[in-house]
C-alpha cells in the first residue's frame, strides 16, 4: 500500500467562505461495520516522569472506533445534567487504548478502541529517526549517541486560532450522505477528514475546529485574501436547444469540477506515495499512520492517520499539512539516516558541503546532536 484510496468517496461542489474553501466528500453508502464516536475529555492527563518532572497533557477530545457492527447512539454525547466539576487530573492518556464494548461488561471480544485524533500521525513524525545516529561518527555528541533526538517538539495551531475557519465551518451546509471534508485555506490543502458514516460526520463536524493545523495554514488564514468560487459556466448556450440539453450541461459542469478537483487541487494528497505503518488491527479494519516522502521540490506534504477496510479503501482519515520548515527537517533526517548519519556522504548526496550540512542541522534545531 503506497497511496490513499478514495474509491466510493464522491467530491461535491465546494463551499467558499472568505479564504476558506470546504470540499465535501459524499459516500453513497456508509462503510459497514465501523463507527466513530467522539469522546470528550474534561481533564488534564499527568504522568510523573521522574521526581520533579511531570508530563502534562490536555486533549480536547478523542475518538472511539467501534467495529462491533451494532448501530448505536453516539457514545459520550448524551446530555448530562450534572455540573462540570473543574479540571481533574487523571492518569496519562494512552494513544490507542482498548475499550471494553460495554460498560461493566468483563471479558468477551474487544470491539472498541479509543484514540486521539492526529496524535498517531504526529507521533509518527516526531519519532522519525528518533534513535539518532546509528554509527558513532566522531562529529556526534555523546548525548546524541545515548539519547537520540529525545525530546523533540513541534508546534501547531488550534483550529479556533485559524482566522475564518470557525465561521466557514459554521455556515457550511452539510450534504446528505456526507462522510468527509477537505479543508483548503487560501487554496492550500490544510486537512482531510473522512469518517465511515454520515451520522458520525454530523457529530464530528465541529471537532475540525479543535484539531491541529500547521503554522503555514495559520499564516494563510491571517494573510490570505478571499478565494473565488469556481462558478458553473454554461457558455453562450449555443448547443442548448431543450431543457434536457440544459440539464445535461449542468450535469457536465458538476463532473468537470469533480475531475479538476481531484487532478489539480487534491493532487498533492492523492498523488503522493506514502510510507505506511500499521499500528492497530480491528477485525477486518487496519489502522495506519503514514509519512510523506519529504521531498523538497513538491508542494504541500501531509502526515496522517488512516483506517482502511479489508480492500484498502479509506474508512477513516485525518491529515495534517506540514509546514515547509517541518518538511525540511524531515528531509534532513531522512538524508542523514540514508547515509548512516555520515556528514560528508550526506553532503555529497545533497550536492553540498559538510559545513553547509552542519549549518542546516543547527538551523533545524538539532544543534545538540553535534559536538
Amino acid at each position: 500500500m503506497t497511496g490513499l484510496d478514495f474509491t466510493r468517496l464522491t467530491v461535491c461542489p465546494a463551499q467558499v467562505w472568505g479564504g476558506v474553501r470546504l470540499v465535501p466528500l459524499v459516500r453513497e453508502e456508509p462503510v459497514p461495520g465501523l463507527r466513530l464516536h467522539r469522546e470528550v475529555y474534561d481533564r488534564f492527563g499527568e504522568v510523573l516522569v521522574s521526581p520533579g518532572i511531570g508530563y502534562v497533557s490536555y486533549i480536547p477530545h478523542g475518538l472511539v472506533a467501534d467495529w462491533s457492527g451494532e448501530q448505536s447512539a453516539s457514545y459520550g454525547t448524551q446530555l448530562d445534567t450534572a455540573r462540570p466539576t473543574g479540571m481533574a487530573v487523571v492518569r496519562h492518556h494512552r494513544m490507542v487504548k482498548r475499550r471494553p464494548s460495554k460498560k461493566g461488561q468483563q471479558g468477551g471480544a474487544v470491539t472498541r478502541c479509543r484514540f486521539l485524533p492526529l496524535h498517531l500521525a504526529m507521533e509518527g513524525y516526531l519519532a522519525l529517526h528518533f534513535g539518532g545516529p546509528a554509527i558513532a561518527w566522531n562529529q556526534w555528541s555523546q548525548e546524541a549517541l545515548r539519547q537520540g533526538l529525545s525530546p523533540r517538539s513541534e508546534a501547531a495551531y488550534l483550529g479556533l486560532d485559524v482566522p475564518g475557519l470557525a465561521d466557514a465551518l459554521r455556515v457550511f451546509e452539510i450534504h446528505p450522505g456526507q462522510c468527509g471534508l477537505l479543508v483548503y485555506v487560501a487554496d492550500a490543502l490544510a486537512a482531510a477528514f473522512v469518517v465511515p458514516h454520515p451520522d458520525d460526520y454530523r457529530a464530528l463536524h465541529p471537532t475540525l475546529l479543535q484539531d491541529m493545523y500547521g503554522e503555514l495554514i495559520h499564516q494563510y488564514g491571517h494573510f490570505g485574501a478571499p478565494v473565488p468560487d469556481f462558478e458553473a459556466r454554461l457558455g453562450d448556450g449555443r448547443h442548448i436547444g431543450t431543457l434536457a440539453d440544459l440539464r445535461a450541461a449542468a450535469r457536465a459542469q458538476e463532473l468537470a469540477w469533480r475531475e479538476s478537483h481531484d487532478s489539480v487541487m487534491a493532487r498533492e494528497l492523492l498523488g503522493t506515495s506514502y510510507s505506511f505503518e500499521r499500528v492497530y488491527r480491528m477485525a477486518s479494519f487496519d489502522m495506519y499512520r503514514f509519512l510523506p516522502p519529504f521531498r523538497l521540490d513538491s508542494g504541500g506534504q501531509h502526515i496522517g492517520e488512516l483506517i482502511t477496510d479489508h480492500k484498502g479503501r479509506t474508512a477513516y482519515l485525518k491529515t495534517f499539512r506540514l509546514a515547509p520548515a517541518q518538511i525540511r527537517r524531515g528531509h534532513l533526517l531522512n538524508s542523514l539516516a540514508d547515509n548512516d548519519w555520515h556528514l560528508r556522504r550526506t553532503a555529497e548526496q545533497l550536492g553540498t558541503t559538510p559545513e553547509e550540512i552542519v549549518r542546516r542541522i543547527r538551523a533545524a534545531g538539532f544543534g545538540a546532536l553535534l559536538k
Partner: protein
Amino acid sequence: MTEETCSDLIAAEDVLLFVNAAVTSTGQREFRSEAHRQRLSLDFLHEYVRVNYRTVYAASLALDINDHNAARIVEQLLRTAGEAGEWGQDQKRAEGRLIAARLALLPPQRVYRLFRALRAAKVSNRRTRAILRDWLAARPDLGHDAVKYRDGLKTAARHFHLPLKSATGAGPAAGELGDFLFAPGVRPRYEHGLLDAHRRAHYEQGALYELPFTVAEGFAAKHGVKRSAFVERIAPRMTRHERLRTQRESGADQKGAAVRTDLSVMPLTRLALYALSLPVEERIRRRAELTGALRRAARRAAGAYAGTWGRVAAVLDDSYSSSGSGEKRRRPLGVALGGHFLLEALAAPGSYGAWWTSGRTDPLLVRPHGPTPLGTRLVDALEYAPDRLVIVSDGWDNAPPGLAGEVLRVWRTRLDRERRTTVVHLNPVYDADDFDVRRLAASVPTAGIRDAEDLPALAEIAQFAEGRTGLAELQAYLDRRIENFLHRYEGGGGR
C-alpha cells in the same frame, strides 16, 4: 443614453436597494452575518437615502417595510426636520401625514421605544410633540398603557410635556394617571380598574389575573404562583401571540386538549413559523389542522388575486442556511413555507408545482438541512412549463455555485426568448456587505421579503428591479401606494 436618464436609473436602483433592505433587515443576526454588521450596513443605507432622496425615504413608510425600519425612518425624519425644507414646501406636511399613518400601524411598544430614542437624541420640537400627542390621544386606554408600558409612557409625558388624555375620553382621569406614574403610593385607591388592580396585585394574588400578561408575570413570580397554573388562568388576558407562545406550558398542545389558540385567525408567516417549531411527530399528528389553517391564511392573504396567476412553479429553499439565526429562528424557511401555500392559492386550481431544494415533497415536514442545489431544481421547475416561476431563496447557490444564475440566463437567451415565463426571485435575507439582497442573475428581478403575505405586492416591485425602469415610473408607483396607504388611514376613520 443621456446623462439625465443614466442618473435616473441609478437613482431608481438606489431606491429599490433601500426598499429591499428596509423590508428584510431588522438589525438582527442572520445566518451569515453578525448583528452589528447588519446594523452598520443599515445605518449607512438610511443616512445615504435620507440625504439624497428624502421624498422617497419618507414615502417608503407607505410600503411593506418592517417595523424596525419604519420606526427608524420616523426617528430620522423627526431628527432632521430642518432638512425637509430643501425638498419643497409640502415636504414637511407630507412627511407628517405619512408618519402619523405609520405610527398608527406600529405596535405600541415600538412607538414607546421610538419615544425613548427621540428623547436620547434630544429631539423635542413642536412638530414632534404634535405628532406624538396625536398618537397618544388615539390610544384606546391610557390606563392600560400606564400599566403595561409604564416607562415608555412616563418618558413620553415627562420629556415631551404631553397631556395624559385620550381623545375618546375613556381611561383614567388625568390626575389619577399622573399620580400613578409619578407619585405611586400617594392615593389609597384608583378609580380606574386596571390601575387599581396593579396597586392591589402587590399584595393580593387574585388581582394579578386582571393585569396584562407581561405585567402579571412579574407579580406571579413575586407571589410564587406555579407557572402552569398561572399561564392557564391568565389566558384570557393574553394577546394572540402570547397565547400561542405559552400554550405548551399550559399543556394545551397535548393530545385531546380543549383550549388551544385558534389557528385560523393567525397571519400566514406566523402560522408557518409556528408549524416549523413543532416536532415532526406532532406535525404529522396535527397535519389536517395545520394544513387547513395554512390554506385558509393563504387564501385570506391572496384576497382578490386568488387563482389569477395561472400556472405557477415555485423553487423553495430549505437548505441549512434557511435556519436563520438564533434571533431570526427559521425565518427564511418560514417565509418559504408561507410562500408555498400562498402561491398555491394564487395559482389557477391544480396548476401549481413546488420544488424544495432538498428534494422533499411534503411541505409540512420540511426542515433546514443540506446544501442548496438551486440550479438543478430550477431546471426541474422549468420543465413544468409555468407562466410564473417564483424563487424563494437567500441567493446562496452552492451546489454547484452559480449554476442557478447560468440556468436562468441560458433559459432566457436560448429557450424562452418570447418571455412566456416571468421569473421573480424573492429573498428573505439582507446581505450586509452588498447593501442589498443577494441576486441570482442580473436578468432576474429580485426583491426582499419578510412576510410571505406581501408576496404579490413585492413581485410587483421586483418588476422595477430589472434595471430598465426610470425614477419617474417608480415615483408614479410610489405615489399610488402612498395614496392608498393614506386613504386607508385618514379616510378609513383612523382618527
